[in-house]
């Protein structure tokens, strides 16, 4: 079976001529199904670029990125969007719930975009909110929810599409440490159920919760360690 993420000799450059910036420089990486990977590094190390590639939001300048077996460079915008919808569940630092939209509608939205009937989408969304203990907040808008609750709704939205991997970008960055721990506990739990999780963070304490840590510096992988830290 194909790896969830497969990168070979991946480079990503921005700008041109003399002011060229090499955000990723010859990266090889493989993430298998069921892994819990933290990608760490200081700002400017290429983390964000890595996230954009794994999240199918961008294509590499050189090399091959395969997500769920699909070569990103071979896909047009429409196919790339479809791949995001089917393969990736996004969790962002500032939650990024849709404004003025209830928790239930937020969770149902990715399903609506892939053409699931509204009634069916809401049913699935509600059961996902229930699973995360948020069903009593289904009709609340983002402004009526605490940070931790918003992140739970965001996680429900990421999970509802049954993606190949959850891509979490600093998921605890906007939360206090107690709430942050709860979110990390939840992610750990989900991983134990077999869900692949890729975590992007600069926080080493958060990274310790992952089973595998990949350190980036200047666009290169400088270490890749497995097992408890």
């Amino acid at each position: 079976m194909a790896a969830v993420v497969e990168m070979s000799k991946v480079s990503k450059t921005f700008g041109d001529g003399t002011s060229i910036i090499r955000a990723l420089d010859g990266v090889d990486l493989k993430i298998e199904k069921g892994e819990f990977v933290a990608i760490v590094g200081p700002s400017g190390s290429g983390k964000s670029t890595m996230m954009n590639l794994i999240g199918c939001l961008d294509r590499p300048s050189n090399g091959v990125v395969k997500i769920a077996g699909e070569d990103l460079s071979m896909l047009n915008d429409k196919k790339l969007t479809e791949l995001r919808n089917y393969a990736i569940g996004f969790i962002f630092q500032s939650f990024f719930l849709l404004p003025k939209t209830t928790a239930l509608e937020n969770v149902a939205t990715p399903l609506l975009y892939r053409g699931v009937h509204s009634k069916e989408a809401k049913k699935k969304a509600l059961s996902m909110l229930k699973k995360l203990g948020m069903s009593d907040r289904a009709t609340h808008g983002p402004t009526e929810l605490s940070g931790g609750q918003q992140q739970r709704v965001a996680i429900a939205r990421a999970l509802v599409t049954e993606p190949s991997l959850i891509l979490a970008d600093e998921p605890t960055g906007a939360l206090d440490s107690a709430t942050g721990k709860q979110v990390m506990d939840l992610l750990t739990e989900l991983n134990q159920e077999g869900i692949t999780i890729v975590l992007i963070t600069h926080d080493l304490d958060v990274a310790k919760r992952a089973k595998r840590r990949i350190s980036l510096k200047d666009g290169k992988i400088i270490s890749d360690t497995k097992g408890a830290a």
Partner: protein
Amino acid sequence: MNLRIAARLAIARIIATKTRSGLTMLGIIIGVMSLIALVSVAQGATSGIQDQFKGLGARNLTISGNTTESLTIEDASEIAKLPGIDVVSEQVSGNATASSENASTRIRVIGVDVDYETIVEPDIFAGTFLANTDFAQDSRTIVLSSALATSLKVDASIINETISVGSTEFTVIGILDDANGFGNQGTAYVPLQTAFRYFAVPPYLNTITVQTTSEELVPLVTTNLSRLLSSRHNITGDRDADFTITDASQLLDAIGTVQQFLSLLLGGIASISLVVGGIGIMNIMLVSVRERTREIGIRRAIGAQQSQILTQFLIEAIVLSLLGGIIGVIIGEIVAYFLATLGQWNFALSPTMILASLGFSMLVGVLFGVWPARTAARLKPVEALRFE
């Protein structure tokens, strides 16, 4: 995501931003309102005039002299001998200064014969029209148009009192109710022979009005009249006729043309405000796209296609303009109703006009919504997500 969901999103968004949406729609509301109100005024006002003409003019033909000495009393008596003619009425006119105790004004005095009332059926506001006895005695009696009564600052109490016209005293026996007519400004009616004595030179007439025995005979009688007068006036070859024959259908055509022109003119002016309203929508939609850049980024990240973002914003613009259009139609019809009551013409809802207005406002939404919607759809997900 189908259109229904996009429409619901758009409506939710419009409700969530009530004030802004309301102000944005205002342009369309005013545009559609003026479109409906102005066109209905143009149609209502002119159809009122049309109805008046239809009521009294279908069998009538008017022969006007192109110079003051074109038509004569003999012409009129020869015309009366033609077949298919019921009534022939002779009219002559002159100018004079009329004075009441309160005011004086220049007026047009029209001398009419006994048959004038039969053909024209004037509406009387107060008193009576010229009666048989007035014609028999060529009496110095006079009937005022309502406009003239206003100019002279007199009301119904002037009946049986006198005003002076030129240097002669006339007894006012009636005031016409002709407020909706036109061309009656400062007009007064006196018996034909009286007019000849004081204001005009016999045997010349200004107009001869003919009533045919039936409407179908109008074209035939027109031809016969033309032939008769041409031979009496020695009009041959390329000499231009010194008379003009008009029938009601020509007048109706003319009014119809005026109506069309007025509708187009007023509708055109209103359409400009509708287009301005559309620019308002475009402006707000562009601001909205910028403000919601991150929302667009989130939607793109979780799987919204460009076409779905385009649809969402386009529907939002269309819903805004269509909603504005619906409100505009309602207000416009109410305004049109009140104007109709005020102007005393018939108020009628025109489904064509309503549908056209709604269609037009929807078109405005599409035209001015496309650019903002395309801008939204073409945002790069990565950049949109990072937008602060």
